[in-house]
Every structure is written in structure tokens, then in C-alpha cells.
């Protein structure tokens, strides 16, 4: 069936399967920043925004976004790059497979929270797993990026 979506500020008509999940549909249409790491809504790799809200696209049927706006990492490239540079400077960009979902959540958090504490940051990002970095470097990068690092 066909759905009408605004993806990354562009109106698009997608042909999707009845039981197809948004993550798969987005990948099929070339939004390869969308990754999947689990089948059980545990890892956060597939995080995109639906109407501005960070959402697990592996758990949303594609037909459900008919008439909505979807934002993937490709749609916030400049902002993502600004954070990615901080992440890279920290050395906390490892295999990178978790990064798009992680960055989408970080950018959403930036919109939602002002001057969050460590606990608030950790809480906000808990759904985003990473097996490589051990999280500490990501936390340092987020704090630097948000300007809440002690020495920032």
C-alpha cells in the first residue's frame, strides 16, 4: 500500500508492506543510517523521530506514519556532524553501528532538556545500547557538546 510521509522535510510517497516495519521501509528507500540491532526493541539503533519524538522505528509499522513527519540522521546532517566531531575527538566513535540511533537520541535530548545532570543524560539515553565504547566516552562527548562538562 501507499503512504504519504514527509521524510527529512521532503514529501514522499512510499510503497510499503502491510506488516512492514518503518525501519525496514526506510532502509529500503535508501536511508541507510537507520540500523537494526535487535528484534525486541531493546537496542535503540533504529531510533528516528516521528513528528519530532524519538521513536524506535523497528517497532512501528510503516503504515502508521502515513501523514506524519519522519526525521532520520540524514535529515539533521549538519547538527549531527557538529556532535559527531565532538564524539570523534573523544575517541568515542568506535564501530559506529550504534551511532545514528544514539545521535538521534542525543539531538532529541538537547531539544528537550536544559543543562541536564549526568543522571538525567544517562537516563535519557539508557535505551541506546553500545557494545564497544563502555558509554563513558559518549557521556563525556555529550557533556562537552551540551556545554555542561565541568571544564567546558
Amino acid at each position, binding site marked *: 500500500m501507499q503512504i504519504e510521509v514527509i521524510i527529512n522535510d521532503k514529501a514522499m510517497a512510499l510503497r510499503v508492506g502491510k506488516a512492514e516495519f518503518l525501519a525496514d521501509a526506510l532502509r529500503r528507500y535508501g536511508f541507510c543510517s537507520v540500523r537494526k540491532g535487535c528484534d525486541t526493541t531493546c537496542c535503540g539503533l533504529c531510533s528516528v523521530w516521528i513528528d519530532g519524538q524519538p521513536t524506535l522505528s523497528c517497532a512501528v509499522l510503516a503504515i502508521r506514519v502515513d501523514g506524519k513527519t519522519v526525521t532520520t540522521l540524514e535529515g539533521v*546532517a549538519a547538527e549531527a556532524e557538529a556532535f559527531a566531531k565532538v564524539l570523534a575527538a573523544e575517541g568515542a566513535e568506535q564501530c559506529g553501528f550504534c551511532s545514528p540511533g544514539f545521535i538521534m537520541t542525543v539531538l532529541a535530548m538537547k531539544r528537550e532538556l536544559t543543562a541536564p545532570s549526568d543522571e538525567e543524560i544517562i537516563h535519557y539515553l539508557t535505551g541506546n545500547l553500545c*557494545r564497544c*565504547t563502555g558509554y563513558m566516552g559518549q*557521556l563525556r562527548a555529550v557533556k562537552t557538546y551540551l556545554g555542561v562538562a565541568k571544564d567546558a
Partner: protein
Amino acid sequence: MRNVSKSVPKTDALPLALGKPVYTEDLADANALVVKILRSPHAFARIKQIDASKALKLEGVACVLTHNDVPDVRFTLAGQSYPEPSPYDRLVLDPIVRYVGDEVAIVAAVDEKTAVKAMKLIKVDYEVYQAVLDFEKAAGAASIIHPESDLHCNFDIGMKQMENVVSTHKTEVGDVEAVLAECAVVVEETYHTQAQAHAMMETYRAFSHLDHTGRLVVVSSTQIPFHVRRQLARALQIPASRIRVIKPRIGGGFGGKQTGVVEMFCAIVTLKTGKAAKIVYDRKETFGCTTSRHAMKLTVRLGADLEGYIRAVDIQGLSDTGAYGEHASTVFAVVGDKTLPLYNKTKAVRFYGQVVYTNKMPAGALRGYGATQGGFALESAVNKLAVVLKVDPAELRLKNLIREGETSVTGKTINSSALDRCIITGKELIGWQEKYPTRKECGAGKVRGVGMAVTMQGSGIAGIDTAAAEIRWNDDGNYTLLIGSTDMGTGSDTILAQMAAEVLDAELDSIIVHAADTDVSPYDPGSYASSTTYVTGMAVVKAAQELKQKIMEQAALHLAADAADLVWEREEIRTLRGDKRIELISLANLLVSGRGKMQLSGTATHGSPVSPPPFIAGFAEVEVDLATGKVAVVEYVSVVDCGTVINPNLARIQVEGGTVQGIGMALTEDVRYDRRGMMQTNSFMQYKIPSRKDVGEIKVAFEASHEPTGPFGAKSVGEVVINTPPPAIAHAVYNATGVWITELPILPEKVWQAVQKKQGNEE
């Protein structure tokens, strides 16, 4: 130094972070056939009959392959240099299935839906056998897991095939029993370490196609492209010259991708159909149908004299390799290799035992590779010894540890070690003086304690694995560094480029790194055994030195000067007096042109006769909730000696990441099966890797040493970092609660029960 020991960002960091199409699945042909595997529902059975005719008739199905359609040659999927020490005990598809999830048929169709539909149409008749699930009962069990007559071992690894014993091993120096009998204090304990999953975020995947010359091209998320090529040649019975393996960016490996898992399935489909094919394992398959860490049971006996010198170390082990013997003997040997030399006041040491087959998912390589299991047992026993001797465990270690320049009783000479300083720094960072051994009451039924452990690993496989590197000087004065090692995300490509740039006094961005493609890259066994920085790094240094010398010679010719009179500084080469000079870029241009007729390159192969150990001291502070038994890590300190740190930021992340993986192993991660051999932990719901909330605060420090056999003094860092959390956390739990947990993971129910039991005894 200009490039080495600098925290430069990874050269590929931005494209990775920004979700560019750089991973295997992103690169696959959109029209590739989708490959799916029909799997065994039984832990142990023989396929009496298999009928795929209905599936084959389904529209969109390209092929269905059963054990009747594949070559009849056994092989191993272990990523090891030829001749592999792992037994050749596999077929692409075997009429005997040996665990729930073992492969029964390969289906390829135009899309996933059709492939799944086709799988359901395959009829299989099984003769079900009695499965062997308890590895302590596997040796000599009535069921013989590998009864086949064509199983082959390249070496004598002590296999007793008809007894389900894959490998028997013994290392002994001195008379352990006699020394133990003389010891004033002997502690003995049996430890269990569980199967752990790699849980890298990118699951296993590969795709394949035939190129314009009809050669098989396999693109795979693998740590071992050259070994995969060899495996495919044998498994599919085609010449290796007809195969090309390409490794794009990898979404994590941790040793899992040191085993060839999926490549043969899509490759055989491409060979049979002539079409492009791709296979992507889902998370369930990745958990349930690949490999895990070898679960082990290790009984340790430590003997010490009254002055606190450890005189005897005796470890008896049993290891569970599951259905196939990948890495069975080698992981087991490492248990002894990385424990027996650690304490060097010993007079006798021994490590011995067996590895057995069971009807569970095979075990394989996983970061730490036996040192993790051995480290938990030995270090837990040392902590227990400290309690018996009533000494500070940090002091006990400082008194007994092998030191720089010493040779262990097993004959291992340590050229570099800062482990003593690692311990001292770690004590300061965790506040050992104030916190040990006092248990701290935190109110609400919570108590805190600290614990510690030290471990060692290796750097590369001594005398076996060799890596080659080639570096070309291009017409524009840039360099292309060709290597066959595989950056799994750790930044090894960047680190190797830093080394090349250092030798050539070049800017980092003038080094183009190409890895890995078996058609183009020089041979490298791949990235495992903590070898890339140390072994491949040395090959890069040598290749760059060779190129540098060639460039100097050419500069001398062009300047009509004596090469010995020349200095190379940044962008130019000039005579000492400075009267003649040539810019590198002009020289590069001249060389490839009609005048020079010379493409310069440096090539080197390096293999090390030694595998110098990196060391780590780990300190944990935990909080135990006595009402539930739940253990939370408050703080973890990892202090590492990896020789010279080539890139401090990247090394630090390695330490943090490995520490967290170790915390997972210590507290929550556990591959479990039910009574019928079905894996219960095949999703992230049941298999708990640490999240951000589970790790407390991690502090990292380095104590540099200088390893004379390593590039710029470097050793490895990737693996050693996972080893200390299990024993250090178990120790901290003891100091908080007074109970020793000897079986990993340290689950709340185990702590709670042990505490109850202890209180019962005290009342």
C-alpha cells in the same frame, strides 16, 4: 613524536557516525537473493529424510540445498593460521545435527518472505538421539557427538573422539604435589565461568556475487578475510584463486567474527545459481546459531609459605566447546598460558584438563580468549589466599608478581611490565587505603566493598601469525598503506597510519589506508589475538622504513649527493649543509614520470617470536543490596600497561569498553539453555548486556612501559581489558558481604542465597 602517542580522531569516524553506507549490508546488491537457513529443532539428531520438492516449486525460490547438495569435505570455521589447530569436524550441511539451531537446509529466494515460506515447506524426518547437555557429564557419555570417520586433526590435540573429548592438555613444571605438600597454606576452590555472547551490534552478514571473470566475490563483516578465503576454498571445493574476500567497515566483532559464520551459505548459493546472494542473521540467530565464550569449570589450588610467597599454582580445567571444536584446544591452552607465569615466586605450576563436545551452540573466540576464564579462577583464589594469610591482596600481589626482566618458571621472559605501578595507581584512584577491607554500611540494607584483580594477556600469536604491510609512494607525494588487518571499529587503521606517518615524518592525512581485500591486501591473518597494533604495526613500521630508505636513495641520485649526507624533514630532503634540496612532492613526481621510471614501495612481513603480555590492574567498588542480593558497580578502576600508548583516546575507549564487557560477564551475561537444549537467552530481553545505568563510573589510567619488540614500544590493549571485572567484583562482593561467589555471573539470587546461608551458619 609527531604522530604516535597523539589522540587523533579515527580517520573514518565521521562517515561512521553519520550513518554513511559503509557496512556489508549497505553495500549488498539490492536484487541479491535472500538466503535463509532452516535449523534443527533438536539438540541431537540424524536427518533420515529431507524433502525439499515443495519448497523448490514455490515461485521465487532460487535454490534449496540440503546435505545431499554440498561437498563432502570436513573443515573448521575457526579463524586460525593454516594448519589450524582446530579439528575439521564440520560440513556445510551435515546429516547429523548437533545442537538446536544447527543448519539443516539453505534456502535462497527473491525476497525474505518467499524464503521464509519456502522453509516451512521443507519436510524433514529426524531420528532423535539422546543429547549431551551437561559438560561435566560429556566425557564418556553414551551419545557420541562426532561419530564420523572422516573427522581430521592437523595436530595431536589429545582428541578422544569416541569419548566426546576434543582436546586434552597438560603443562607442568616442577612437582606440584610435592611443593603443595610443603606449603604452610593451601587454598583450593572450584570456579565456574559461563558462556558469554559477543553481542556486537552488527549481526553476522555477508553477500556474494560472481565478477566479470566468474570469480566468487564475498563481502563479509569479518575479522579474518584471508582465513575466510581458505575456509571457503576447502568447504566449497574451489581453488582459492577463484575467491576474493572483501571486508568493509565492521559493526563490532569481539572475536565472534574470528569464526567464519555465514560466508559459506551465501557463497554456495552464488556458486549454484550464478546470482548475487546475501545473508543477514537476525539477533536470535546471532545469539543462538553462532558461537559464544567457552564455559569452563576450573579447580585451583594455590600453595604459599608463611612469608606469603606463592610456591605452587595448580589449575585443573574442563571446557565446553559445544557442538564443534572451533578454538577448543587453543582457548583452553591460553587459560594456563596467561595464568601460570603471572606469579613468579613459584617452584611448581601445572595446568591440565580436557575440552569436551556437548550438544549446544559451539563455543569460539571471544575477547580475552581463555585468559578471562583463567583470570577469574586464579585471581579469585589469590584473593582467597590473601584472606587466609591475613594480608592485603595488593601487597600479596606486589610480593609475588613477575617483574620486568624476569623469566617465569614456564620459560616466559617479560621484557616490559609496569604492573606494579598499575597496582599502586589503581589503589590511589579507588581509595584502597580508606576502603579496604572495611565494609561500609550505606543504610537501607545496602553495603559496599572493594576488590581487585590483575591479569595479563598476549600480543599476537608467537611464532605463528605473521602480518604483511605494503606502503606505496604515489605520484602526488601521498602514501597508500595496504594492510590485511581488519579494523573492527577500534581504530586500528588509524593507529597503523599514525605509525607509518611517524616513520615517514608525514601528515596523517597523507596516508591512505586500504584494508582489507584479499585481491589487493598483503597477507594478514586478521585482527584477533591482540595482534594488530603489535604484529601488523611492526610490519607497517618496517615497510615504511624500507620505503623511506628507497626515497632517500632516489633523492641522493637526483641531488647528486651522498645518501648519508641527506636529512629528511617534513616536506623536503636536503643535504646537511643545506646547499641542495628537493621537495618530496617534486621527487615523487619525477620518480613516476619518464625520468624516474620508478614506483617506490616498501613491503615487509613481521612475525614475532614472542607475545609480550600487556597487564592490567582492576579495582571494583560495589554496592550490594542485602535484601535482594543485587550487586551494583559503583566505581571501576582499570589501570593498564600496554607499553607505549599509540593513541591515548582510542586506547582509553578500548579500556572503558572492555571493562564494561567484563562487568557484564561478572554480573548479568549468561548464555543459558533449557532441558532440551534450547537457548533461553537469544534476545537482548533475556541476555542482559550492560546499559548505561549498569556500569557505575569507570576510571582509566595508563602506566606506560616500553616493549622492545613492539612498534614504538607498544604492546596490545584490546583483550586484556575484559579480564579483571569478574574476579575483582567477586572480591568486592566478598568484602561487602563475607561470601565468595565462585560461579559467574554473580546474580542476585546467588548472592542472596549465600548470604542467607552464611547468616544461618552464624546463628
